[in-house]
């Protein structure tokens, strides 16, 4: 695997010279100054910073004032942020992190190793990262700017870096959070970090205003003076805002899909599907293998053949997507493989396979299923209709329900009250544990969302994931990941039905967009306006 310490080092040197470390995006000399209004395709967050995570919206708002140790760029290379270097020990049971010097918090206090130790042990492990840090036994400050992370088993370097650059890896100030409860600290609505943007004002129901951090550690950055993040409740309103110049930039499908082409044709706007490599989304289908006849692999494979996934892509996602093949999505160029069993739309074959499984057509159909489409995305309801139609065409009776978010979560993950569920996930590049836990016996935990809810497990799969978790040789690890995709696609307990693109829409004069693999969560210090 090409992502070793050298790249982090190379990135370090480059980090001091803006424009080098970042891939060839710097078209012209960035201009200083200006105000930018940004939004995303969702709602206002419940708080600007929600320590346990809280979803995309607080992730968006919290990553402007708060920073992480590393970042994963568009080319899937590690870039230094608050860490300058990360060195694994020879046995990969510990990692030494060298921190950036001369960094201050927004309140003027110095950023030191103590902050990282506090964040790791009091925040990441118990709250935001969770199981991925199960093997972490201790974090020690070796000096004021060096921290050692110690594990009770070998940890792949890519995995460790993923934690540091991941959604749960924000570094929080010890002097503010050490007293009281991190989750309920009122400072979460007026966050203090090391980042390029300082909190100024949050007008609930409208927007949050960030102003330039003049003491930011990277010279001359951020380029902008002010950054507004504003929320509209529906895509049509965001579209109107773009057209009336009230909005410069929108992440994650801000406007109705059919309108994107029109915006881009006007020449005033650009759309970009890059910048979501480490947060790619898919809609999934899940078979509850506790229930006959879905416990039969042949039946699950047959049903996959009955669903017209291209129709889903064309009508529900307006052609911006593709049928899913592998739980490690195609946006993940490091671990994805297309060399897996595929299920094309073929009702005749599906009928034949169901016949072969002994499920012949009776007066009431072959059998009936409860189909649950999770109502957290409007699209899932529409997908539900298409899946229902496909299954009914091969004489499977379908009872479709589209419960709202809490009820969907409860029925899928707590009550296991479904036969087939249509849901979603977004996955980072690192497949362990976010994707792998859907397929292993360890992942079965009643009442815990986005885990293995279908009851599927085989010794072969458990063993494969166990090896994937501790393999420190990058090439061998990639091979294991490919094998994982093949096994998952063969067994079909849970597969991506379609992968759908996320789009960023921006005015043409907004420069340096989509420069990270999960760009919504980057600090946007390098964003500038060519006006």
């Amino acid at each position, binding site marked *: 695997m090409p992502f070793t310490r050298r790249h982090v080092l190379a990135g370090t040197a480059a980090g001091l010279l803006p424009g080098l470390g970042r891939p060839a995006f710097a078209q012209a000399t960035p201009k200083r100054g200006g105000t930018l209004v940004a939004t995303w395709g969702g709602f206002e967050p*419940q708080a600007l910073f929600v320590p346990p995570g809280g979803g995309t919206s607080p992730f968006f708002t919290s990553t402007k004032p708060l920073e992480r140790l590393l970042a994963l760029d568009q080319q899937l290379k590690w870039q230094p942020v608050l860490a300058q270097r990360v060195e694994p020990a020879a046995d990969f049971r510990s990692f030494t992190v060298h921190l950036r010097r001369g960094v201050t918090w927004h309140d003027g206090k110095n950023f030191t190793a103590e902050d990282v130790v506090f964040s790791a042990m009091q925040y990441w492990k118990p709250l935001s990262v969770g199981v991925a840090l199960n093997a972490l036994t201790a974090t020690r400050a070796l000096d004021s700017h060096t921290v050692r992370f110690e594990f009770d088993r070998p940890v792949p370097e890519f995995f460790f870096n993923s934690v540091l650059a991941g959604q749960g890896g924000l570094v929080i100030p010890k002097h503010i959070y050490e007293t009281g409860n991190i989750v309920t600290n009122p400072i979460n609505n007026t966050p203090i970090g090391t980042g390029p943007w300082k909190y100024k004002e949050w007008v609930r129901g409208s927007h949050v205003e960030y102003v330039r951090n003049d003491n930011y550690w990277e010279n001359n950055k951020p380029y902008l003076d002010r950054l507004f993040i*504003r929320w509209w409740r529906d895509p049509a309103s965001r579209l109107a805002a773009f057209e009336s110049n009230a909005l410069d930039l929108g992440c994650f499908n801000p406007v109705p899909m059919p309108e994107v082409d029109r915006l881009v044709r006007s020449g005033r706007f650009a759309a970009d599907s890059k910048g979501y490599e480490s947060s790619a989304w898919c809609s999934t289908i899940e078979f509850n293998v506790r229930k006959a006849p879905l416990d039969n692999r042949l039946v699950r494979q047959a049903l996959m053949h009955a669903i017209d996934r291209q129709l889903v892509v064309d009508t529900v996602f307006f052609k911006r997507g593709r049928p899913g093949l592998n739980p490690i999505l195609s946006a993940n160029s490091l671990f994805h493989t297309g060399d897996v069993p595929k299920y094309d739309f073929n009702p005749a074959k599906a009928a034949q396979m169901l016949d072969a499984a002994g499920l012949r057509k009776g007066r009431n159909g072959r059998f009936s299923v409860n189909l649950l489409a999770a109502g957290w995305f409007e699209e899932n309801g529409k997908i539900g209709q298409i899946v229902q139609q496909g299954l009914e065409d091969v004489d499977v009776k379908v009872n479709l329900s589209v419960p709202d978010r809490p009820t969907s979560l409860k029925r899928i993950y707590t009550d296991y009250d479904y036969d087939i569920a249509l849901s979603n996930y977004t996955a980072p590049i690192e497949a362990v544990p976010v994707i792998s836990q859907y397929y292993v016996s360890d992942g079965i*935990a009643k009442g*815990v969302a*986005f885990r293995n809810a279908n009851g599927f497990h085989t010794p072969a799969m458990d063993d494969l994931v166990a090896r994937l978790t501790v393999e420190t040789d990058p090439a061998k690890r990639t091979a294991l990941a490919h094998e994982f995709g093949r096994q998952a696609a063969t067994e079909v307990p849970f597969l991506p039905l379609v992968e759908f693109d996320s789009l960023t829409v921006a005015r043409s004069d907004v420069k340096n967009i989509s420069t990270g693999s999960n760009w919504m969560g980057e600090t946007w210090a390098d964003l500038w306006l060519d006006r």
Partner: protein
Amino acid sequence: MLRLLRRRLLQGVPLILGVIIMNFLLIQAAPGSFLDVMSAESQVSDPAMLEQLRVTYGMDQPVWLQLVKYIWSVARLDFGFSYRQNMPVLDVILASLPATLVLMLASLLIALLLGVTAGVVAAVKVNTIWDNLLSFLAVLFFAAPSFWLGIMLTVLFAVKLGWVPVGGMMSITASNQGIVATVLDVLHHLALPAMALGLFYAAVYARVMRAAMLEVLSLDFIRTARAKGLGRWRVVLAHGLRNALLPIVTLFGLQFGTVLGGSIVVETVFSWPGLGSLMLDSVSSRNYPVVLGVLVFSSIVVILVNIAVDLAYLRLDPRIRAR
């Protein structure tokens, strides 16, 4: 009058208690707690961590204890703490309240202006083309769902004509340009949602007004006044309007709660950042401190408005005062 006020306020207490208990139990019955939502959003996947959150949020206690604690805190005007917003519930509600009040008042104003005018005109020109046209419009707006009316108004005035914004309450830049600019900006955003919500009530008021005016116009004293040679319109305005306003005031009190409910849908259509949007978000995230808070808070407001209407009635109608 004071005695009546005190009596009505005292009657309100068990009412509010009932509302709290009813809604508390209702929400407890919901499948899926807000912890499910929170853990899912956060991708919290560690059962031990979930248990810790359950304790933090007091959800490990028996339901009746949670209820008693809640009633006790409401009595001290404390509606609990919303962990989702990380703020006291009352603050969350008060933050959304102004937007809803502005919308409601604007709608009621539109309703009163249009409704009363239409009703008076229809009654004075009874059985003419004007009467028929206005009555037709009234039944039409009385039947149109507000959310659909909102969308259609948007298509016409915002999308096709571009006169007003599609949604939101103010432009981001408005707050930097002084109070006048801000007010104008809000009014600009307010026009469509207030119409969508207000036209229904305008229709109601027009019908009531027309009927009441017809009754008043046929009364003896009006005929006398006319016979005395007073101008047609002055008669109507001086005598008719004042007497016909009684049923309107009653309706206002009765409908205050309905307008509040109606604002939920209209706020959704127009991205209006008020109680309706808050309520819908909170229902869908099972944020029950806030759901309960909004239900209880709005019930209290409705009760208070009704008491105020009773008192206003007392002033307006001398016959009742005499009793």
